[in-house]
């Protein structure tokens, strides 16, 4: 029931909800800022690629969690465990410091990591998937901790706290790509000065793209491939009859049972699928970081992925992408914030006078404490963010809408809506609006 219903169907951003337009606008703005940063040399290209790699990793994790929570309504707090299993699986096979194998091709490690994750998912799923949802949450968290404790203490198998070093890059053993970073020439992009007379002068470029850059480019390409493949697969799966059953289970499990579906089997399949995707993220991480340690299994990593999914939009893959991006922005962006904020609360100078307004000691002390203890402040900010999102937009920024509509069902007035979408979002685009795709 929004204005866009009555507008002619032309133009680029038609049919996007207000939230989506907002996000597109935000992303475009950010892209422009990033390009500006890259071009003026304010943002190092290799670092930028590293951040993109991290974002890709979180996007994969969010996809995996989405397949469990968003599609089927499973509360899984063992994300970090599967992430770690993927990472350790490939590391144990390909690292040269591995106590049980080593120096195998990373592709083999990828395969083994995913298989082990699937097996462990079965093992965890059997006792927990029959439980009610909040029991499932605690039980999955508990079992994830068991896995972490095992990995940390079985030193003969995993090197314990020392972690696994000497992990090769993912393309080890591939004909061209293995030596791609070394083979590519080091590009030097000259520094230019762009002068617009009487207006401004700006410095452009001026960086050196060496081996790290090409390695970073390779990593980013790899994660983009992973993300792309996973996204396509999930879209396919979601639209299939299987996906439809999952959505019914999420909405109303009793209804699904009444329809004769063995919900346990479907939940298990969804659980395993999500876990394998999380392990894929772990595999990428191992070959990006070249080092894994038991700290990768810590529950705080699980919570960050949950934040990404909740913030982005439960059940929506685009939302998961957005959420992953926001989480990295929070974790890494606050590094820069620490640099940008002045250390002491600024005093206000009144212009044209010698007067200076300074604030009471309490304000200054609080400011000083907040700025100098940035980790605590970041934790506070993250907590407040969660609370605010749950208060004002519990379905996330980009809740699933178009995904839930069967394409054929959008012809004509038909509540092609899904019984389970509680998309009571701020722009009133309830799913039960007939006909058009979203509003």
């Amino acid at each position, binding site marked *: 029931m929004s204005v866009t219903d009555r507008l002619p*169907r032309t*133009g*680029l*951003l*038609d*049919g*996007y909800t207000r939230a989506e337009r907002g996000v597109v606008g935000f992303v475009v703005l950010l892209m422009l800022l990033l*390009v500006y940063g890259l*071009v*003026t*040399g*304010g943002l*190092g*290209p*290799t670092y930028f690629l*590293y951040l993109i790699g991290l974002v890709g990793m979180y996007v994969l994790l969010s996809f995996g969690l989405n397949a469990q929570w968003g599609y089927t309504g499973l509360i899984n707090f063992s994300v970090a465990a599967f992430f770690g299993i993927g990472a350790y699986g490939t590391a144990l096979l390909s690292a040269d410091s591995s106590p049980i194998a080593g120096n195998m091709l990373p592709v083999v490690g990828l395969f083994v990591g995913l298989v082990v994750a699937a097996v462990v998912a079965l093992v965890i799923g059997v006792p927990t998937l029959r439980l009610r949802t909040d029991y499932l949450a605690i039980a999955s968290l508990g079992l994830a901790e068991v896995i972490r404790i095992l990995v*940390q*203490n079985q030193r003969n198998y995993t090197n*314990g*706290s*020392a*972690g696994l070093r000497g992990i090769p890059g993912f393309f080890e053993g591939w004909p061209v790509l293995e030596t791609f970073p070394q083979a590519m*020439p*080091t*590009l*030097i*992009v*000259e*520094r*230019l000065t762009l002068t617009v007379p009487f207006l401004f002068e700006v*410095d452009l*470029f*001026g*960086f*050196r793209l*060496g*081996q*790290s850059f090409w390695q*970073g480019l390779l990593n980013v390409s790899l994660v983009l491939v992973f993300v792309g493949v996973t996204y396509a697969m999930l879209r396919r799966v979601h639209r299939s009859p299987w996906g439809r059953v999952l959505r019914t289970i999420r909405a109303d499990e009793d209804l699904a049972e009444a329809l004769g579906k063995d919900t346990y089997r479907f939940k298990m399949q969804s659980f395993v699928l999500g876990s394998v995707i999380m392990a894929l993220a772990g595999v990428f991480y191992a070959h*990006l*970081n*070249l*080092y894994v*340690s038991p*700290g*990768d299994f810590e529950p705080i990593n699980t919570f960050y992925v949950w934040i990404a999914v909740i913030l982005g939009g439960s059940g929506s893959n685009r939302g998961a992408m957005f959420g992953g991006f926001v989480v990295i922005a929070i*974790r*890494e962006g606050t*590094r820069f914030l*620490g*640099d940008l904020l002045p250390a002491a609360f600024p005093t206000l100078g009144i212009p044209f006078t010698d007067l200076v307004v300074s604030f009471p000691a309490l304000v200054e002390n609080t400011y000083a404490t907040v700025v100098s*203890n*940035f*980790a*605590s402040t970041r934790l506070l900010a993250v907590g407040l963010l969660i609370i605010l999102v749950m208060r004002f937009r519990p379905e996330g920024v980009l809740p699933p809408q178009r995904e839930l*509509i069967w*394409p054929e069902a*959008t*012809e004509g007035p038909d509540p092609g809506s899904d019984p389970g979408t509680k998309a009571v979002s701020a722009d009133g685009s309830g799913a039960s609006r007939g006909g*058009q795709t979203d509003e």
Partner: protein
Amino acid sequence: MTADDNRLNRRDVLKGTGAAGLAGIGLTAGCVSTADETPTPTESSGGGGGGGGDDDDTATPTEGGDMGAYEIGMVNSLTGSLSAFGARNERGMELALESVNGVGIGGRELSIIVEDSESQAQAGVSAAQKLVNQDQVPFVIGAVGSGVSLAIYESVIQSTDVVQLSQNSTSPDLTNFPGLLRMSPTGRTQSTALADIISEDGYDSVAVAWVNNDYGQGLRDAFVDAWEGDVAYDSPHDQGQSSYSSTVSEMANSEADAWLFITYQPEFTAMAQEAFSNGYEAQYYGADSVQGSDVLADTPEGSLEGMKIVTPSAAVEEQNYQDFASRFEEAYDQTPSSWAAFAYDCVITAALSIATADEFTGAALQETVRDVTRPEGEQVTTFAEAMEVLGEDGSPSDIDYQGVSGPIDFDENGDPVGFLQIFSVEDHEYVSTGFTSA
């Protein structure tokens, strides 16, 4: 159908963006050139207007000519489980910056960009990525935790020629990486010294409680290698546990009379309290991190009597250390720890490497960083003294910097010469009872 249209529109948007991106790359291609093999400053082989001909190939926008500061990086545990060490490092670092910038390096100052590792490998790696790839520093001082230092080295530093110098990492594992320098001696020396001391004291059975991380595991492994007697108890514990009673009970049940603690202050305090409350008596031994004034404050009188602790020592009897200590006390109202001394020396070493290098790049600094502290050359004990000896154009082998933490003298594995100090707890105070070297 409408959905398809929308999807097509979205695809168009993506195509448009992609095309724009490619166009952008094409435009800039004219300004791009490739480097020759030699890393000397560029002959701009074609491409682009203005600008070019930087004398160094770091692209920090801050090099505004000759008066800009030299920027190096530091990965420190500002938060997380090792934040106490991070704080000590900060104090030492600031004092060192004062010393260096009081004299200057060829008219320029030294400035340090500090990033937080959160005492975790993941965060440490991303901190190092920012320093190396965004801030383009050629020298990184980092990190505190041994696992973090190794992670940074493996994933960021190894494939570049940036110099990495760890301020506090003591795990014996770092010795296997000659490219990774460190200022604090390897824990292996502590473990060996402890094994010697315990057996000299007449014990043949020891119970070892060690913290479950790279530091604890490294020192414990080295100890078990060096110890010839029986290890009656050998179990790890986590930091921040809610209860250490089972650890202490098991140590008591192992019937060893010598208890060795390789852990941090809060954990050791909890264990000492637990042992006291349970009426257990044993001869305590400790590695470096169990020592601290908080431990003394929170344990009852007499509970630690006779405990022996081995720590990496600062050169406490040297003049430069004593000057350092008095400046430290003036500034911070407390005596410096050896960790602060290590951080101090890291900064001074970095400054001296910069002063003697041909250019401010990783490759050049790699050449000089070891030699400024090696035995060839005149012994100098402060930065100011060193700069005087070097004059306008000194080379690294003209000086032999003797740090406040010891002679340093990096060996071929990047480890410094280790001096250890042995403390004993007498009348609930730490009393130094001797020195020993690696």
